[in-house]
């Protein structure tokens, strides 16, 4: 029987004022990004509590992306800076628990940065794909991951999914 391909499930917490709008813009611009991501809109990344992040991993997310405003550009002045500290705290805690800290990442995106958001999502999905499934909930698949990359024949040539390593987005963490 053929092995079921591992498709990462990445949760993206996107700030209403920047990354979520960038995702909207990506749609308008017809920029594609991997369908592995589930976007949750937050009023500000400062709204994110530590427990949201740990619950995501406990309940099956293979990776979590926190996308907030550019530093200095937070609608609420400093919510993204608070989020940055919480993400760092949780990355340390992930290591304590035995999970790879690379499964959690924060990026800073403005509302106009549709392409960088798409690249950030693609990069996150590919990072998680290499790490394999979240062993907490998908232990059975841990050692048997199959590398699959969808190459749709009729895809937009500018699509991020067709060229996932087109551009490495600078990571804040």
């Amino acid at each position: 029987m053929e092995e079921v391909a591992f498709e990462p499930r990445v949760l993206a917490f996107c700030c209403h004022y920047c990354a979520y709008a960038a995702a909207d813009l990506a749609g308008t611009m017809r920029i594609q990004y991997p369908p592995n991501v589930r976007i949750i809109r937050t009023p500000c990344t400062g709204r994110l509590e530590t427990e949201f992040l740990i619950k995501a991993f406990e309940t099956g997310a293979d990776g979590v992306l926190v996308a907030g405003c550019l530093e200095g550009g937070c609608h609420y002045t400093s919510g993204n800076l608070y989020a940055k500290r919480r993400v760092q705290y949780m990355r340390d805690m992930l290591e304590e628990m035995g999970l790879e800290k690379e499964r959690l990442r924060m990026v800073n995106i403005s509302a106009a940065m549709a392409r960088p958001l798409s690249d950030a999502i693609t990069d996150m999905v590919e990072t998680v794909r290499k790490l394999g499934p979240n062993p907490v909930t998908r232990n059975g698949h841990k050692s048997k991951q199959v590398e699959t990359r969808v190459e749709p024949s009729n895809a937009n040539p500018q699509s991020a999914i067709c060229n996932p390593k087109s551009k490495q987005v600078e990571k804040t963490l």
Partner: protein
Amino acid sequence: MIVAERKKIPELLDIVKEHQRLLVLGCGTCVTVCLAGGEREVGIISSALRIASRLQGVDLAVEELTIERQCDNVFIEQAADAIERNDAVLSLGCGAGVQAVAERYHNKPVYAGLNTTFIGILEEQGIWTEKCAACGACVLHEYGGICPVTRCAKRMLNGPCGGSREDRCEVRPDVPCAWQLIYARLKEIGQLDKLQRIAPPKDWSHSIDGGQRLIVRQDHRI
């Protein structure tokens, strides 16, 4: 208030490794305020224990509960059912809370999930400082309300050691010299003459040596 900080997850996992059903019991008083053992921290530590135990292939079911105060029998009673249906309790209360729960439930192991650190205050968001060593014989009235026992690294009672540099402690340059603070405070309130007094050796018999301390108030006994 009592200030504590959480133990690391591997240590917690090692503490509870013999058990399959664990109650993580939070306390809604001091450790909630110092963000170490309140309802939120119970949720985070419980999730972390579930994740870490699954990764290690350990079968551990974790239940969460937070009561108002772990050092009070009235509130501990509210946890009776939850304690009964679990194999052990990981208390996120201070040391007093852990022992109060343990004394009440003789047949259940009760473990400390926090390191109780000191009696202190919230200095600013996310920063707590020690203010009292509970020495049992308070001398704050002599020193303008600044405790040399807690805040001077050498516990000097008769003036500064002479090692401070730019008003900072020579042992801990990140903290101010307590004696500089005492001098400034006494000057401010016009009590510099108190520094003329020679303080006799402090009576440490009221402090932690000599076993558990006890206070009995006959006027409140019934």
